[in-house]
């Protein structure tokens, strides 16, 4: 199983053109020229599979679901054929001591060479006791596995930035991988969940060029997180023309106009959803009519309402009045605004202020 990748693929009935097509798509996702797609195919076809150890910490397994379920079986097979996945609790058949032994063996045999993938945040509260595997805390396991790793891939927003476990009030004291490990190259692949092709792209880059891709200031691969959702959004032209959907069911929404005023976080969110899309290229949140939540940004969960526009309109009272006229507007947003309004009025008999509306 350690021969060149293309031989394994051919044995499984995957033709070179299938692989080339896959690499062309991957290169296009990484904003590389077509020549790079070809180079990528050549290099990956000849690559030896690196050992990969995948440790799940304080997570929901959504990242694993994202990777394993979103593509057709052949492509998914390819993803796992490119690597030698030596430890992944959810996917591996082994359990208990056997599983732990597999991890130890992989770590020993590939000392200094294996890739370590982490999903989930690491809780530091009560000495790391909030999340343990085989009686050992996550932080303990991470520090042990990080020592011999060539590089670490932080999969998903939890491993990258702490994610939902870290959300206010952060009961378990959750932190990200890069908060703890300082002496290893770390790639953050945030998203809740992250786009599977982004992970494949990072692996492909590692196999092709022998190095990790170029990262931005938040540790994310620039090829995928180089531009905002907004800049690559197919609805962007409507933003430029000042055409906005005002509610989720008005004429503008039906015409596919910009969702900025419905709280879309696309302008401040760096991710590849707009180009790579989801579910095998079927669609993505904005295409299905809902604004971006900004899930690949640090602390997105605490960034205010998903339905609050990024910049508050100049005359918020007029905005709410107009909204209540059309009725079921942005349901949650209005009910929250109304509740805040009512609460404030009840308790203090004060005029509703901008701050109340933003609650």
């Amino acid at each position, binding site marked *: 199983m350690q021969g060149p990748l293309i031989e394994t693929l051919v044995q499984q009935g*995957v*033709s*070179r*053109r*299938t692989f*080339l*097509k*896959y690499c*062309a*798509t991957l290169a*296009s*996702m990484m*904003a590389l*020229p*077509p020549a790079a797609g*070809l180079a990528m195919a050549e290099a990956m076809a000849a690559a030896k599979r690196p050992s990969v150890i995948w440790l799940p910490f304080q997570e929901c397994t959504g990242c694993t679901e994202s990777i394993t379920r979103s*593509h*057709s079986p*052949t*492509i998914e097979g390819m993803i796992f054929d490119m690597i030698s996945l030596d430890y992944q609790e959810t996917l591996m058949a082994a359990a208990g001591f056997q599983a732990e032994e597999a991890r130890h063996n992989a770590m020993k045999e590939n000392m200094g060479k294996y890739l370590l993938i982490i999903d989930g945040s690491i809780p530091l509260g009560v000495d790391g006791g909030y999340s343990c595997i085989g009686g050992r805390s996550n932080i303990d396991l991470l520090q042990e596995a990080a020592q011999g790793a060539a590089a670490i891939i932080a999969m998903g927003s939890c491993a990258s930035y702490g994610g939902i476990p870290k959300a206010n009030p952060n009961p378990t004291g959750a932190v990200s991988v890069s908060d703890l490990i300082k002496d290893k190259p770390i790639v953050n692949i945030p998203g809740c969940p992250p786009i599977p092709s982004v992970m494949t792209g990072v692996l492909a880059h590692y196999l092709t060029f022998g190095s990790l891709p170029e990262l931005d200031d938040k540790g994310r691969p620039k090829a995928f997180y180089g531009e905002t959702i907004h800049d*690559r*959004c*197919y609805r*962007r*032209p409507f933003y430029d023309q000042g055409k906005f959907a005002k509610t989720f069911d008005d004429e503008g929404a039906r*015409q*596919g106009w910009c969702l900025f005023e419905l709280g879309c976080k696309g302008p401040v969110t760096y991710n590849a959803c707009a*180009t790579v899309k989801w*579910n*095998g*290229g*079927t669609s993505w949140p904005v295409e299905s009519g809902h604004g971006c939540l900004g899930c690949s940004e640090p602390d997105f969960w605490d960034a205010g309402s998903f339905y609050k526009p990024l910049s508050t309109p100049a005359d918020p009272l007029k905005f709410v009045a107009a909204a209540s006229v059309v009725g079921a507007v942005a349901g949650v947003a209005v009910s929250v605004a109304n509740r805040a309004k009512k609460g404030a009025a009840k308790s203090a008999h004060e005029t509703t202020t901008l701050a109340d509306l933003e609650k």
Partner: protein
Amino acid sequence: MSPLETIPIHVINPLPASLADPVGLTGNAPPLLHELSESVRRLLDTGETTAIDLSALPLTPADLVWLLEKLGTGEIAVTLQANGESTLNETACPGIWWVTHHNEQGAVTSQFIEVALVPELVKAHPLDVKRGYEYLELMMSDL
């Protein structure tokens, strides 16, 4: 027959984005034609090939339909069955190819306009040709 079975169910794969309901032209497509004419000139002068990644550009479905109509249909239409269908169609301007990759579910995974004498994917790889040659030799030795 239970009442549930009387409900007719049709599974309809979504149309490729380029054929879905147009939501309006943005004016972003015409500049692409200028870029294409530059690319064709480069192909003629130096033999350099170009690929434009359509999913990376802010084009609406209507823009893509507009582009397809402007570029027209040429003489060659290549269909590739490799993990889903791919079409590599010559446009009315020889040297400009409209390349669409679908996955096995029929969704478009990537879409390019390629400027080349022959699209890269159509060419046979020498190692595959060698494998074919070996098969041919083997087959003939059995005759």
